[in-house]
């Protein structure tokens, strides 16, 4: 049966042939607070290969969102380096990085397609071209007919799909996703996960996906990075060797269950100090 | 900051401001006629204090009568409007228009009908105060979710008990909010109309002294009027916080 490989040491090796798209080296983040400095992240190092789907899972407060914000260039690291597709990250790099947040944050006064176009419009891309690219992405996420709809007319799942399309519109090297399905109900969440995998396969993007759901993390990923809190750090890098395409039934398989239990123990045993 | 420190800080700032005000007056830095000074106010209190206190009494009388009518009438109107479903849709454009209309222009009509005695002031105050009270009461009544009534009935509460112990507390925050707004407008309206045409009351005496350029008296009157308005606002604000804050939090969370 499938073996679940688990390495206890931090490995900075590639598991897939192809170039490294994300390289994090010794990334740390300190926050000042009224009771002294707080170390949100301590010496985080990992790498992600081109086209990989990597999930990051960990307990609340382990700094996963902070890590994503640093990768996105929205927040500076206190020390360490991030290299994205050959480019050191020191500020928002929309050409390299697309971000999808827990809330879609669509501009409510623009239609779905206008929202997707928006980053291109900011860059001065001509109307016809940006319209075409946006429509193509809208088709990709399965909302081709909803181009003219406003966010308040869309369901939560639909809004997130528009947000995903918007994240992809500048053809970034990497798509970062910060618990994008957390606000959705369970059935929608499961469906969105399956659809995300389809989008991933169709577009060939590299995706880094943050979640606190263990099943979701395993189901989606090629590699799961398990984080612990206090300070935030990666405790294990687990390649997931379940076959693709993934099916919902796999969640009930023995291999899946063993993997899930393993991660659960990693997280709960190393819970907050 | 602890409460004691906060109060001490506020007193210090107030004392400094008063000192600066008096200083500016003594050093002739500002026009005394326009800006007055604390000492002028005290002098005015010494000479005309009694007159102003009498005037205050008249104004308070008008305000209290107006409040009694506006509060009772406004809440009753609001309850009725809240219970008749289509009524609020029918009335809403009119309510919207009420806010836009400068009610002050109705005052000459009131004077023609009622004279320049307290009656016209009271009626004007009621006019200004009743609509916010009615509107907010109506909203409060409508905001009572039906689930609460079902729950009460399931627990075996009688109709009277349900109304008293479930529905009134649910609607109360909005009602108090309306009372606070309405009363604030009402007080402003009474004082305003006293300034325009009256024989007595704070507004009248402020105006009268203005025409004589008695700056000290003018500021004294203004201070008394501000005191009345602020005290009423604070008292109702206190009430609003006590009975209402949970509702805002509940509605924000849902």
């Amino acid at each position, binding site marked *: 049966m499938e073996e679940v490989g688990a390495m206890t040491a931090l490995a900075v090796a590639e598991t897939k042939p192809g170039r490294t798209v994300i390289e994090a080296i010794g990334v740390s983040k300190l926050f000042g607070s009224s009771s002294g400095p707080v170390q949100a992240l301590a010496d985080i190092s990992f790498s992600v290969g081109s086209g990989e789907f990597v999930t990051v899972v960990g307990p609340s407060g382990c700094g996963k969102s902070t890590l994503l914000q640093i990768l996105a260039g929205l927040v500076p690291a206190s020390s360490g380096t991030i290299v994205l597709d050959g480019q050191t990250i020191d500020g928002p790099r929309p050409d390299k990085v697309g971000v999808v947040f827990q809330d879609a*944050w669509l501009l409510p006064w623009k239609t779905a397609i206008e929202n997707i176009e928006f980053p291109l419009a900011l860059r001065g891309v001509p109307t016809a071209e940006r319209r075409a690219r946006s429509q193509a992405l809208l088709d990709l996420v399965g909302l081709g007919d909803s181009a003219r709809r406003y966010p308040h007319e869309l369901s939560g799942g639909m809004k997130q799909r528009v947000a995903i399309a918007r994240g992809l519109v500048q053809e970034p090297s990497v798509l970062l996703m910060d618990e994008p399905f957390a606000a959705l109900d369970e059935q929608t969440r499961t469906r969105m996960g399956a659809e995300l995998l389809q989008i991933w396969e169709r577009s060939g993007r590299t995706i880094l996906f943050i979640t606190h759901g263990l099943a979701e993390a395993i189901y989606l990923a090629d590699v799961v990075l398990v984080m612990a809190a206090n300070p935030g750090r990666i405790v294990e890098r687990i390649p997931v060797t379940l076959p693709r395409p993934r099916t919902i039934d796999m969640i009930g398989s023995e291999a899946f269950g063993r993997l899930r239990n393993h991660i659960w123990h990693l997280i709960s045993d190393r819970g907050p100090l | 900051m602890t409460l004691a420190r906060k109060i001490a800080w506020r007193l210090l700032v107030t004392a400094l401001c008063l000192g600066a005000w008096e200083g500016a007056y003594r050093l002739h830095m500002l026009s005394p006629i326009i800006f007055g000074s604390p000492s002028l106010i005290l002098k005015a209190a010494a000479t005309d204090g009694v007159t102003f206190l009498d005037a205050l009494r008249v104004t308070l009388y008008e305000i209290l009568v107006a409040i009694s009518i506006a509060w009772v009438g406004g809440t009753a109107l609001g309850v009725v409007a809240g219970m008749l479903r*289509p009524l609020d849709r029918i009335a809403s454009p009119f309510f919207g*228009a009420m806010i836009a*209309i400068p009610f002050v222009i109705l005052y000459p*009509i009131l004077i023609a009908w009622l004279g320049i005695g307290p009656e016209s002031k009271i009626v004007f105050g009621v006019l200004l105060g009743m609509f916010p009270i009615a509107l907010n009461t109506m909203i409060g009544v409508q905001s009572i979710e039906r689930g609460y009534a079902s729950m009460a009935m399931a627990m075996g509460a009688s109709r009277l008990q349900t109304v008293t112990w479930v529905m009134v507390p649910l609607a109360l925050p909005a009602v108090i909010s309306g009372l606070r707004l309405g009363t604030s407008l009402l007080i402003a309206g009474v004082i305003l109309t006293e*300034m325009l045409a009256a024989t007595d009351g704070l507004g009248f005496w402020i105006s009268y002294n203005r025409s004589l350029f008695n700056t000290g008296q003018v500021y004294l009157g203004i201070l008394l009027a501000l005191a009345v308005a602020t005290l009423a606002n604070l008292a109702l604000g206190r009430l609003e916080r006590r009975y209402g804050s949970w509702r805002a939090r509940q509605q924000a969370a849902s």
Partner: protein
Amino acid sequence: MKPARREDWLVLAGRFGIVIVFALAWEVLGRMGKSDPELLPPLSKVLATLWQLLHDPDFMVDLRVTLVEIAAAFAIVAPLGLLIGFVVGENQRLYDVVNPTIQLMMATPKAIFLPIFIIAFGIGFTEKVVFSTMIGLFAVILAGIAAVHSVPQGLVTAARSFGVNRRQLYLQIYLPAMTPLIIGGLRLGLVFTIFGVLLSEMYAASNGVGHAFVAWGESYRMPELMAGVLLIVVITVALDEMMRLAEEHYGKWRKSAR
């Protein structure tokens, strides 16, 4: 759909009903009262008088004076109030200092400061404009602050993530997000400004519509008085309605929580 449509007709009928009942009552009560001077002229007489007033050069001068004062005051209130509101809204420290003061000002009956303005500026155009500017300003400042605060931080973060620069952030994210609240604030500011102008004209002035009302009231010229009041009511409601439509148009996307 049927029950909803029936209710719509009922509502429309109700509104018409209220207007018609009001007009009829006015007409009937007016004709009944025969006191001298006539305290409640019937609606028909008031409307006829209104028609005359609109052709009366003296009244039109007063009307023009009032409208110019309102326009002048609002021209200051709108940009200044919004600017102050934005600056205070953006800066947390400034907000903590300024906000309590403004809230206090809003709760006071600002009319009582009118005598001081008259002592300072005399009676005339300047005094009326300065006073009404003060009254209208606070409402617009509060609205400006609320508008800035209404832009969710997450929206700004998301925009930064796809690379907006400062100018784009303000013009293409903040501005559209704030527009409905800005219009709402200007609407309220206009209401206060109009109130300030009319009040100061009624209190002490030599021209303007408010002054005319007081003069008519004192000489018991009820038809003119009521005609003038009706005119002002119509004008203010029309202005407010226009702004309300604009507010609704730019706020269409606010229908649901996000």
